[in-house]
């Protein structure tokens, strides 16, 4: 190849300033001039209720808590991963810390030892927060409902917004549940908070029955406890 400039290919040698000039011409920068903005016309203001706007914002950007309990969480991982890709719906960035998340998907069986821990994780999430129950276990105890150690649904511990049934629900079902939740939040619908049969209490606040008498020496009165009345739960 020769280093000679080829005469046949020759255009203008002026500096390329077209785009810069377009931007500096005083009109609105094209990059910000969306179709939506054109529709508003000359006024750059819209009017809406603040609440409505906030609901739309909340529904459109949700941060999931990275929370795996049992079998359902494997399907939950598939929901986050290729193919199903929950992120497409503006709700698929799993956060490892509850302090950065506003949605908790409860994927699995909750047992007595774990319930207080789950409540603490839930309590650490900032308001407003939402809960999606994934699978029959977190709805009702599922196949393990008769077990001596199994909580009959996450609703006994924390309030729940959406239930996704299945054992496990397919990733598509979970996507549907999450999208439904977004829709409800955007519309400002809220679910009634469920009555919680089990609460964390101070040990000393408990009614002194046989069990409390028995444990009185072992447990520090300051500690928190969760009390399970198996006979009363559904």
């Amino acid at each position, binding site marked *: 190849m020769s280093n000679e400039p080829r005469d046949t290919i020759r255009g203008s040698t002026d500096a390329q300033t077209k785009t810069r000039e377009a931007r500096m011409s005083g009109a609105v920068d094209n990059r910000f001039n969306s179709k939506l903005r054109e529709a508003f016309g000359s006024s750059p203001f819209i009017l809406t209720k603040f609440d409505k706007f906030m609901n739309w914002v909340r529904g459109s950007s949700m941060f999931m808590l990275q*929370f795996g*309990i049992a079998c359902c969480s494997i399907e939950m991982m598939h929901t986050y991963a290729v193919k199903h890709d929950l992120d497409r719906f503006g709700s698929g960035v799993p956060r490892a810390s509850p302090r950065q998340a506003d949605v908790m998907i409860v994927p699995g069986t909750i047992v007595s030892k774990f319930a207080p821990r789950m409540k603490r994780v839930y309590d650490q999430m900032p308001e407003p927060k939402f809960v999606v129950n994934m699978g029959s276990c977190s709805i009702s105890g599922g196949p393990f409902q008769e077990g001596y150690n199994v909580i009959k649904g996450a609703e006994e511990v924390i309030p729940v917004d959406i239930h996704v049934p299945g054992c496990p629900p397919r990733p598509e079902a979970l996507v549907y549940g999450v999208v439904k939740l977004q829709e409800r939040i955007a519309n400002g619908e809220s679910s009634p908070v469920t009555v919680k049969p089990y609460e964390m209490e101070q040990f000393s606040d408990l009614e002194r029955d046989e069990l409390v008498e028995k444990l009185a020496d072992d447990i520090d009165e300051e500690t928190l406890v969760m009390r399970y009345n198996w006979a009363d739960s559904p």
Partner: protein
Amino acid sequence: MLGDHVIGRETHLNAEGFVVRPDEVAATLEILRDEAGFDHLSMVTAQDYEDRFETIYHLKKFDDPTQEVSVVVPTDVENPVSETASGVFKTANWQEREAYDLVGVNYDGHPDMRRILLPETWQGHPLSSDYDQDKPQIVSFDEHKNPLQEDHKDAESDTMFLNIGPHHPATHGVLHLKTVLDGEQVADVEPDIGYLHRCEEQMAQNGTYRHQIMPYPDRWDYASAGLLNEWAYARVAEDLNDIEVPEYAQIIRTMSAELCRIAAHMLALGTFCLDIYGDFTAIFMYAMRDREIVQNILEDLTGQRMMFNYFRLGGVVWDLPEPREEFFEKTRDFLDDLPEALEEYHDLITSNEIFQIRTIDTGTIDPETAKQFGVTGPVLRGSGVDYDLRRDDPYGYYDELDWDVVTEDGCDNYSRLLVRMREVEESAKIISQCIDLLEDWPEDERNIQANVPRTLKPDPDTEVYRAVEGAKGELGIYIRSDGTDKPGRFKIRSPCFCNLSALNAMSKGEYVADLVATLGSLDVILGEVDR
């Protein structure tokens, strides 16, 4: 050889049982281990009868697992105490704690007799006969203290207590690691389990043999190893009831089980890299992509993506999906693409320098310690011990096929990963041979189920222990029948439980980041640890 130690004999379907006095357990086990070569304590079962509590130690040989023996230790109902075996076999430590927790037998001389699965404040032992399930329970929520403070607190060193879990991205579920750090190094780590104890044994004891138990094994090791677990139950129940499985069904079982193994190892690989590189990165997505393909094949076969419930006693529930050619083609396509996919993994993982630095020579466990802890599966084979029940105690169609047991002798995190990756290749070999067989099988001989009576009632007091090679290792089940159509005692030997018990030995003195890697390389599934 045992001489005076033995006070009686029992015969279980799988092995002879020696009855020994509760104060001679350790001596008996030591003789059996050192002189007769029974070096694998595969399980400790406790159960209660009307007139006694009983502990059974199931012993095997690593060299030949078909040689088995049981040591039966009856104790008093009023005050069930028997001598601990934890001095002879380290694995007995956790297993006896579990027996104490669930059944209520006390082990004299045990270094750490506490509850293991249920919360500390739990009242009663749920698998003993006098347990009342309706009684209220209280679970406390304490902060944990520093158990090593005194040993380590001097002018130079300062330990820190760190709770990892039960909600933590690196614990693979709900596991709590009580870790004591000396600077960046692990001074002590104690896994605190039981956050997913779903009463699997009770569930199985409440179900009838024929249909009601089969769905539960899918939920032990739920990393899509479902069919491998179902096989464990199928094998033990078929032995108990003398059921012959038709050859055609055996081939289907073998093929589908190996598909499950691939799916399980893919998840292990993906999450292991997640632990090492940090976030949802390419490798995780690649592994999930390949799992999706396997899951689709299994869904075609069984009708479910994860909880297959496909095996039946005496065979499988239905034949291959129609049109068969399409199914074969789909599976073949997957197998054909697999070498390339594995090549990709090797490029991304095993040849990556960062990965090698993080995994080679970390989390080491030598073969002897591994045997002591009853570690099995890829973890044991990664320490160079050639032990695989598919070959050593053949079941299904494995002994008719051409494949190899994979071992690596690095004893570290890296070799465990290599074992898993090479096992995927072996599984692919098995599957393609099975497909060849199934394709040519004459149409009128496709017998998928043996004739099995509607209700199964094995003779009272028949006892059997049988194991299969699950994705994580030896998955065994002990059943004692009580003459009804439900098992009197159903005990699960979970490979993850034993593997996890070795974590302390593997990660003491290592960096805390390598503790996370070691835990990942063990590939624990908490559903199987806690059951």
